[in-house]
């Protein structure tokens, strides 16, 4: 029971922990806990992978279609500048 309470308390800090931005004392607490809590270790590992996976989806970046850009410049009365950009 006390064990579960620890897991819950640390949960809110795990996101910063995987980013390496958690305070030192919190990191120490987390690491002490992880040493004997397998469940939390799995949560940390999979959370880290989650962040990694999300960052891996980025390459297919959406680019605004040319017609959308044309219409935007028209609406803003900026047609004269339509061809100035890349």
């Amino acid at each position: 029971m006390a064990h579960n309470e620890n897991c819950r308390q640390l949960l809110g800090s795990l996101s910063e922990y995987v980013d390496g931005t958690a305070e030192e004392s919190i990191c120490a607490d987390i690491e002490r806990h992880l040493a004997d809590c397998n469940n939390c270790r799995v949560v940390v590992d999979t959370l880290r992978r989650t962040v990694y996976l999300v960052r891996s989806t980025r390459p297919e970046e959406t680019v605004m279609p040319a017609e959308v850009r044309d219409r935007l410049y028209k609406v803003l009365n900026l047609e004269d500048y339509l061809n100035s950009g890349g």
Partner: protein
Amino acid sequence: MSQNGSKPPPISLEALKAGDKAQFALLVEQNSNQIYRLALRILGNEQDAEDVLQETFIKAFRHIQDFDGRSRLSTWLYRIATNEALMLLRKRKPDTLSVDDTTETDDGELTEPVQIVDWAQLPEDELLSSETLAYVDQAIEALPERLKITFILREVEGLSTLEAAEVLNISEAALKTRLSRARLQLRESLTEYFEGRFEGKVYGT
């Protein structure tokens, strides 16, 4: 204007405020793609994204005098766009809250991890399959509105904690809490997704 490595020309706020059209065109050129992408991510619909894009720059043009220069222009544009997108969402679903709404309905206890499956051990190629990455997109899409927007600003658009907090008009601490929730929730969805691949091989009891 070259896009190949050279820095974009700086925008003069003074000229913008004086109504310089060329400067405004530059502002549009440098920011429209990100604004469109953000709107598309939040709204999931191209027509709505285009409406938000146009409305964002119309408002920016109209209200440039109100911009105080404390944040970056891009942050200010993100803020207008996010509010516009939320307004559209609210029209669709009347229960959506404004980003300015500071009542934290989501600061109860964090959802505890339910799924403990060690899919972190999966080999890289399986982890990064196109099917998995498509699922990641869906899982982001399925996050509750405010978590989703926080997540998109921070993780997809790559804004800093401070910038994302400014866009949403919340404290940095609140931003971090939302990001943490969003990530834990995504972890949960991904665990469900990967669970099948372990065929009952559940770790940690």
